[in-house]
């Protein structure tokens, strides 16, 4: 059925060339509200202290490779694949709150920044050396590729779209595959496609747009590098049509690129309609290729890799020997005195960011949010450090979502806007009844938490919150189940071991018993012999 639907869709709306993208279900046309794009990107001065969480993408704690008091250099590892953003001294290792929707304390390295001109690079692990061995674009044997991926890893490259997935891991399976077929694990007619996501993920966030306006050439070079490394059959950069200036800049850079290099697969520039959440990975893949990715699969299974435009720039920076230690952040919102886009080192506190951009007054008077209006969250602690996930800080006069939620009347507005074909009202129903497994059966995990349903809900229900909560509950349940299974196996193994030991012991006892059983017999013989001998002796004595 789904295949049939897809086929019909393909025939009826046969799109997918670079002129007209595929349509996706649902979504919302929201006002872009981009602020501060007229200003150039400033790099804000380094703060006195940087706080670097020792937590990787998989929420595992990293083992620090530096100790308290060490002098550290920009680019030097603080832990495995975690480059230091600035020169300084390791002040301490302590638990700090990190920027996350649910407050979380975790181990962080706190660094006292030393603002000084060049100091000698200390000995130790310094990843910057490797990239020198990478030669031109077209040198593409496996060993070079592996070296390149290793460099990306060592430079701490993660996606800059919001999820911060490690870039090297994303590219790994693809880079070393020699032909297009091995690039597709799932048998599809899909071309092996590299998609550069230049559709801003949310309204009012402008960091990608600002980046494109400022660094179009570098971005294109980065894409070219990626394209040649991964050997894709198609390479698309998708930009929303609400960004004419960025589109013009990129177009110009692409043309420039074409004059310098010759290639079979030129980078396509795809202008897509401005419709939230076109910046979400699964939705963008749908828009560009027409392929919907079920949650059980990864885009790479369908021969597609999607990277943020910021990541492409970071790849180019990495190629230039620069590790990823800072990112562009949008300072925006109706109550932000001086909205702008600035480059901020990871580990800088929100307070410092706002103070050094002339937005100090926003700290006192208004609500501060990290992230956009739909997927962001309010921040109360102004000392939280910026990370590669932080794309926006906004200020508001009040928290408008404080309206009281009313009962759901199942008006289906949420169904109409859901890009993942979910039935949010049905999920809400199941979750309200704590029917976790039922919500899983209704594909809860396909939810991308875009928040479209929250926007259209006439009853002001915070639907995506329910979904986050239910996901957490389900993961917890799964974990418990797994633990129970492990415990069960452990218990069974223990029982087996005990049985084995018991059997051995019994065997031993049986063996000893049998030994004992034979011994007394011998003993009797001995006695009998002794008696016989004694008697014989007596007889002999008598005889003699």
């Amino acid at each position: 059925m789904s295949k049939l639907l897809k086929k019909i869709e393909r025939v009826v709306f046969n799109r997918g060339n670079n002129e007209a993208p595929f349509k996706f279900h649902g979504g919302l046309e929201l006002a872009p509200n981009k602020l501060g794009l007229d200003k150039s990107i400033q790099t804000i001065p380094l703060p006195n202290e940087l706080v670097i969480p020792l937590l990787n993408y998989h929420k595992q704690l990293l083992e620090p490779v530096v100790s308290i008091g060490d002098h550290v250099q920009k680019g030097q590892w603080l832990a495995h694949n975690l480059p230091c953003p600035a020169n300084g001294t390791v002040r301490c290792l302590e638990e700090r709150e990190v920027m996350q929707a649910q407050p979380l304390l975790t181990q962080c390295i706190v660094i006292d920044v030393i603002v000084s001109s060049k100091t000698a690079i200390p000995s130790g692990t310094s990843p910057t050396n490797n990239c020198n061995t990478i030669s031109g674009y077209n040198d593409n044997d496996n060993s070079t590729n592996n070296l390149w991926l290793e460099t990306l890893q060592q430079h701490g490259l993660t996606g800059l779209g919001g999820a911060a997935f490690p870039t090297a891991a994303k590219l790994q399976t693809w880079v070393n595959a020699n032909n297009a077929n091995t690039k597709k694990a799932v048998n599809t007619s899909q071309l092996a496609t590299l998609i550069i996501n230049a559709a801003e993920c949310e309204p009012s966030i402008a960091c990608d747009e600002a980046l494109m306006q400022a660094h179009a050439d570098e971005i294109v070079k980065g894409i070219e590098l990626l394209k040649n490394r991964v050997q894709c059959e198609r390479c698309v950069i998708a930009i929303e049509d609400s960004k004419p200036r960025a589109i013009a800049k990129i177009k110009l850079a692409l043309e420039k690129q074409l004059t310098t290099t010759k290639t079979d697969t030129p980078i396509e520039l795809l202008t897509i309609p401005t419709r939230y959440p076109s910046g979400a990975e699964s939705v963008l893949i749908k828009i560009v290729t027409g392929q919907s990715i079920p949650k059980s699969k990864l885009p790479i299974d369908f021969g597609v890799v999607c990277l943020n435009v910021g990541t492409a720039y970071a790849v180019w920076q990495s190629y230039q020997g620069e590790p990823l230690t800072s990112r562009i952040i949008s300072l925006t919102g109706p109550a932000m005195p001086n909205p702008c886009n600035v480059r901020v080192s990871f580990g800088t506190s929100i307070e410092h960011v706002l103070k050094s951009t002339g937005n100090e007054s926003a700290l006192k008077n208004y609500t501060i949010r990290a992230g956009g209006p739909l997927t962001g969250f309010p921040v109360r602690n102004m000392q939280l450090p910026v990370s590669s996930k932080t794309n926006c800080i906004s200020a508001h006069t009040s928290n408008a979502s404080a309206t009281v939620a009313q009962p759901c009347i199942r008006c289906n507005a949420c169904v109409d806007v859901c890009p993942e074909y979910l039935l949010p009202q049905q999920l809400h129903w199941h979750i309200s009844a704590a029917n976790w497994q039922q919500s899983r059966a209704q594909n809860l995990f396909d939810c991308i938490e875009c928040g479209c349903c929250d926007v259209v809900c006439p009853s002001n229900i915070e639907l995506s919150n329910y979904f986050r909560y239910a996901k957490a509950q389900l993961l917890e349940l799964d974990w418990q189940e797994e633990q129970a299974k492990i415990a069960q196996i452990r218990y069974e193994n223990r029982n087996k071991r005990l049985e084995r030991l018991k059997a051995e012991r019994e065997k031993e006892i049986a063996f000893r018993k049998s030994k004992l059983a034979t011994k007394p017999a011998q003993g009797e013989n001995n006695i009998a012999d002794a008696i016989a001998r004694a008697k014989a002796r007596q007889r002999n004595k008598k005889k003699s």
Partner: protein
Amino acid sequence: MSHVSVNTALVRSESPSVQRVMLQVLVALLPGIVALYWLTGPGVLLNVVFACFFAVILECMVLVVRKKSLHGEGTDLSIVVAASLLALSVPPTLPFMHLLFGVLVLVLLGKHVFGGLGQNPFNPAMVAYAALFISFPQSMTLWFNPTELTSVSLLDTLKFKTEVVGQTLSHYPAWDAITKATPLEHLRTLKLNQETISVELANHTVSQAPWIIVSACFFIGGVYLLWRKVIQWQIPVTVIASFAIVSLVWATFGTNSIPNIGYSLFSGALIFGAFFIATDPVTAASSTAGRIVYGTGIGLLAFIIRYFGGYPDGFAFAVLLMNLCVPTIDYAVLKLSQP
């Protein structure tokens, strides 16, 4: 609960709200109410006012008992809409006591027994209608005879609606002259008497004219709802289309005991129900495909019950039966549409 919150004020200009939706439904009902007033006299207004008044009072009482905020569920007008729909479905001659029973069923059995707004599997107005229809079949199948209407004043109607309580209708032979069965009830009577109904039907199409106007007014209201995007097109279109197609097929190939399409569509509760009853979002299917299945089911069941069942107009029962199927429809659509 996590601390993420969508700042909806940042991205939406006009905030949709349940009150606004309900208000639009009430506005859409106005032409139909006016037409019914013109056709059947002041009884319909009395019904609407009385039903809404008691429904609101009862709703507030229940909310107090259930320790719920009056600001949330009490002011969202949903109960006013449901009570109005019930009041428009029942005859204008219905005694107040019977209507009160209907409102009781609507609020208690239709809505709050299941947990209040949004939790009820069955359309509350139709639950109340069905309960009334089964409980008081005499007063539920009686309407003012439009041709005698000029002689019925507001005072007369009030008298009828209050005094008849406690008495059998047959004790009021005088009222026999100015009341009559609904057109569909009449049709059924004819059919059961095994008389040829084609002549009657021809005459009836003429006397049908006022009913067509009433249906047309409800149709206008329904189009307004579609225009304001309060309802989606799938349900009304499929209800009417499936009913029309089956009627057409039956009238062409079946026996002559089925009236023509125009008569079929504009008599009874079909138009009113297709736009206002079946589209109740709480009890309808969710997805587009689901709504199509749901609407088609209602149209077919309404046809079957009307022409082959035990009741003259089975729209309420068709809706209730399809309400039962909604979870299954939703689930099936979800399973089929996802890879």
